[in-house]
């Protein structure tokens, strides 16, 4: 979970940072998308490096999901008979929604691929004109709402995920002065706010 998680965190952070080019206008954003496909050329064919990165990403996603599924099954078997009453004491909302949050993010990614990467789910998809695709895509209010909900789920997932990562990899911190919570919150906050800003910018006409 932790190792594949690191790869996925790397992706969402880079992806958010790359998308900031939306604020530099169509030319910059589209050039960036073209550059992603030109990486590695002429040594690699067009989109060659991109597909290598995609392969890594797919492996990380599959590992992450398979581990999460196995972990969930093990833990369900560990308590075959539940309690009539069990209090939740300090477990965070983020930790308790991790599993369903993961499912929401997966469904979102599938939709998102069809929407902005391959375009089947987009009303007016122009290959190569990423700027147009984002602006037209997000001007449909419910599409933007969907993105915002999914990115809030992602924020919670990242918050518990990053903190857990330290714990799993053995980076300890004393109770009370747990700086790992701060790092997790900052990371989740930056990624979430960045991602939320895109649909908001389009809906408010800041970008368009």
């Amino acid at each position, binding site marked *: 979970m932790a190792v594949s998680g690191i790869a996925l965190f790397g992706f969402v952070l880079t992806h958010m940072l790359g998308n900031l080019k939306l604020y530099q206008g169509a030319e910059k954003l589209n050039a960036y998308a073209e550059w992603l496909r030109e990486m590695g050329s002429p040594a690699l064919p067009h989109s060659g490096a991109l597909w290598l990165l995609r392969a890594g990403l797919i492996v990380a996603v599959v590992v992450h999901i398979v581990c999460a599924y196995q972990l969930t099954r093990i833990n369900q078997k*560990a308590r*075959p008979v539940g*309690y*009539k*009453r*069990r209090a939740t004491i300090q477990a965070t909302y983020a*930790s308790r929604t991790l599993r369903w949050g993961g499912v929401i993010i997966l469904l979102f990614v599938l939709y998102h691929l069809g929407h902005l990467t391959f375009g089947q789910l987009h009303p007016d998809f122009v290959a190569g004109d990423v700027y147009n695709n984002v602006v037209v895509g997000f001007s449909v209010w419910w599409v933007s709402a969907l993105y915002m909900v999914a990115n809030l789920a992602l924020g919670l997932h990242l918050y518990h995920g990053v903190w*857990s990562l330290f714990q*799993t990899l053995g980076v*300890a911190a004393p109770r009370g002065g747990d700086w790992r919570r701060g790092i997790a919150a900052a990371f989740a906050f930056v990624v979430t706010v960045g991602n939320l800003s895109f649909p908001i910018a389009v809906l408010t006409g800041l970008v368009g």
Partner: protein
Amino acid sequence: MRLELRIWRQPRRDADGDFATYHVDASPDMSFLEMLDVLNETLTEAGDDPVAFEHDCREGICGSCSLMINGRAHGPEPGTATCQLHMRKFRDGDVIRIEPWRSAAFPVLKDLVVDRSDFDKIIQAGGYISINTGSAPDANLIPVPKRSADLAMDAAECIGCGACVAQCPNGAAQLFTAAKVSHLALLPQGQAERDQRVLRMVAEMERAFGSCTNYGECEVVCPKGISIEFIARMNRDYLKASLRAGSGRPKGSG
């Protein structure tokens, strides 16, 4: 004070069980177990089967008492085993639900008594030091840094009651195992078998229990206040030991 108790009754292992409702008059000065003693006296006098629950020292050090009280292992008072919980923490007229620890690894034997031998198996897998310690050495013969000594003592406070497993939504035994692993790993005497200990104890833990997803519920119900900081320590020890075992040079493999 008059209380309504809803207690899990189960005649024996693998039998069906259900909640039974009782009313009991208790004094706020009684401990929780004394209140159950009063209930059992009435049941016995009436010719009924008394409620089976585990207890031994009744002073918070043996780890026998193990009750899920209103959804919280050892009840509402933090840092307190059931035997040290007093009825003044409840109010007249309260309804109290009492359940056994629930875990595949802790089968119910009768009523509120569970079999916790899977904890013993984790200890048997490596929670010991196999060196001949001889007679008591002079104090300070083996220097131990103050911080290590303090941390080792914090970990050694674990009384193995199982509240961590009981409260964990995953039924994981990480807090117990981490306390036992860290207690020895922090002291000079524990170094010889350090790698083998953590590898074997974790393997045994994983065989019988669920797996940690860092909810952190265990540390709040721990009657000894053991911190999940020890789980991170155990994970670090486990990673290092796995790497060394992988490279064929485990510490203390002899």
